[in-house]
């Protein structure tokens, strides 16, 4: 049973969190509950009574590789923004374990509804990383075919996609399929009405959907305390389905917990809320300045829990990966960075007329009229050779 009752949990004192307890509601927990962990920040493998995972050395190295390459891609995108090649970038730095762990728990026929920060999940789905950059460069609003990798378009409006995921899952159930659906969202989105409505709909219709909340502690400048007075995973109980908090910086635990929630969905037992407790190491986006609202100490504390470092420590200690593996991965990372850099720089601006394309599937008289007007206007600048200047 995955329901995490408050009574069953041993409160673990956290000085940071208890300092805020004065603002909490009577009866609300004053300390953070324990979270599911299989790999400690020090790289020690630990057991959990409800969740376990048995991975081959190759699979473990695979998870490590996924996280390293995702982080490398993310760093390249941040650089490309600084170089003026992208207008904006939303970094996932620090959230690699939550995304790779959950992403690798999925089957090919499962369907993903991401926010705009799920670059690691996209990686797991086999979406070409350069596809993600068009919207941040400003050449499209996404543009990839969601059905080719069962990875929906990035959704910018906070929380909207949780309803799409729920509807899609209702359809999966109607089809009699044993596929599952996963909806990503964050701690900020947990305050959105759409998220609450998606919990209601999925519970009422017993939809095969996993709600994967990356609680990265910050919704731009607002700490989780501004969104909730109870740990987020406990919200699920009120809707009638289980919630579980997992160490979001532990890729093994994220994989185990998500896999269990997906299996539950496949068995027709309905939704699960997974709260991956993690940290947004970078800014909200490249436009944000976190020095205005949070202290370096906090970041440093989370740096010690880095998701990649702990798996590397484990792999090295256990002798599961040799120096050659890490060297090869370093080379592969640089190759990826170069490929992304070159692809973005070569990404052309869209044709002027493109804004009129795909407004409607079956066409629209006004769009046709305005397209023709705009084309005529553009043509009025043509010189004698017909070149538009």
């Amino acid at each position, binding site marked *: 049973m995955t329901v995490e009752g408050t009574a069953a949990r041993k409160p673990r004192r956290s000085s940071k969190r208890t300092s805020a307890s004065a603002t909490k509601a009577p009866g609300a927990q004053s300390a953070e509950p324990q979270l599911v962990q299989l790999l400690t920040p020090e790289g020690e493998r630990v057991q959990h009574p409800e969740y376990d995972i048995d991975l081959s050395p190759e699979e473990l190295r695979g998870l490590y590789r996924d996280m390293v390459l995702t982080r490398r891609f993310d760093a390249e995108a941040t650089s490309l923004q600084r170089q003026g090649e992208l207008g904006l970038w939303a970094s996932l730095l620090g959230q690699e374990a939550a995304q790779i762990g959950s992403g690798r728990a999925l089957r090919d026929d499962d369907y993903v509804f991401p926010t705009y920060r799920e670059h690691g999940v996209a990686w797991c789905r086999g979406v070409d990383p350069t596809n993600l950059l068009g919207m941040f460069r400003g050449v499209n609003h996404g543009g990839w075919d*969601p*059905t080719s990798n069962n990875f929906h378009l990035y959704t910018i409006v906070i929380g909207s996609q949780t*309803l799409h995921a729920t509807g899609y899952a209702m*359809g999966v159930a109607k089809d009699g399929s044993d596929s599952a659906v996963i909806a990503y969202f964050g701690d900020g989105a947990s305050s959105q009405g*759409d998220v609450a409505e998606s919990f209601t709909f999925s519970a009422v219709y017993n939809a095969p959907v996993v709600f994967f909340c990356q609680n990265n502690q910050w919704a731009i400048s607002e700490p989780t305390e501004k969104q909730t007075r109870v740990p987020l995973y406990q919200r699920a109980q009120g809707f009638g389905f289980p919630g579980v908090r997992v160490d979001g910086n532990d890729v093994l635990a994220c994989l185990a917990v998500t896999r269990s929630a997906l299996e539950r969905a496949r068995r027709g037992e309905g939704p699960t809320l997974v709260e991956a407790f993690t940290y947004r190491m970078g800014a909200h986006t490249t436009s944000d300045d976190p020095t205005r609202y949070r202290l370096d100490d906090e970041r440093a504390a989370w740096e010690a829990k880095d998701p990649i470092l702990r798996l590397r420590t484990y792999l090295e200690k256990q002798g599961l990966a040799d120096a050659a593996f890490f060297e090869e991965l370093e080379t592969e990372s640089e190759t990826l960075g170069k490929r992304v850099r070159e692809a973005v720089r070569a990404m052309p601006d869209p044709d002027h007329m493109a804004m009129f*394309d*795909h407004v409607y599937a*079956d066409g*629209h008289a006004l769009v046709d009229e305005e397209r023709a007007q705009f084309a005529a206007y553009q043509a009025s600048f043509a010189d004698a050779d017909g070149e538009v200047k």
Partner: protein
Amino acid sequence: MAVQKLPLAKALNESLRTALETDPKVLVMGEDVGKLGGVFRVTDGLQKDFGEERVIDTPLAESGIVGTAIGLALRGYRPVVEIQFDGFVFPAYDQIVTQLAKMHARALGKIKLPVVVRIPYGGGIGAVEHHSESPEALFAHVAGLKVVSPSNSSDAYWMLQQAIQSDDPVIFFEPKRRYWDKGEVDTEAIPGELHKARTVREGSDLTLVAYGPMVKLCLEAAAVAAEEGRSVEVVDLRSMSPIDFDAIQTSVEKTRRLVVVHEAPVFYGSGAEIAARITERCFYHLEAPVLRVGGYHAPYPPARLEEEYLPGLDRVLDAVDRSLAY
């Protein structure tokens, strides 16, 4: 049973039944649409015949209804959702505007959103607040949506068929005060195009353009005007996005005068758009400025005042007089 005389609500019911029978992907969803058959009985008997999996009573949450319908459409279904009353659509407005309308373009055409949002709209039934509004302009303003409204039983049947078959999202406004008006429906006829207007009365002195509940009123006004020796043409617009400007232009080039009538407030209303476009297209044909008759820039009033707020026969004829006086 090819030709039947049906109330408009029953024509919609027959249309939904036909859609459910012919396409297993069609779903009907909304508040109280199942056992109750909808508060206006538009979905009466459908759940009994097609089951709870296809005619779905939803939680009372409009954003959830439209948001899950989007997900179902992405899975390959064709949801027809009911918003119980016009004034209750706004919790879903975000999903309709930011997601339903734009997802096809966001995907550069790689996915389609065949969702119909049915909304009973308009006043004249003596209801409480939020049950009598005409928010069509708020949707017609949004690229990616199509917006239509039938005025009679035959159009109710056929336009709903066409809306369900459309691969674009369609906001389908139903004139609730005409739900009980009977009209002939030929279920074997060849329907006109969904977004084409129809001239429902020929005339030569002035054109009245209306849609939904106001078409009947304009026909009555034209009949009264005829008694006074004035030949008024009435165009049933049927579609508010796209608008069949060619049909209006053809009529106005003949009559040289145009009055647009709708229940919605005239400020930023569809009449404003029609006036601007027709002034551009027919500047040298017009003998008078395009006039509008509609609601005022005030919240929809309490029921005892709605007769004054809504366009009535006298207000339409007053506008006809003013136009002809130029």
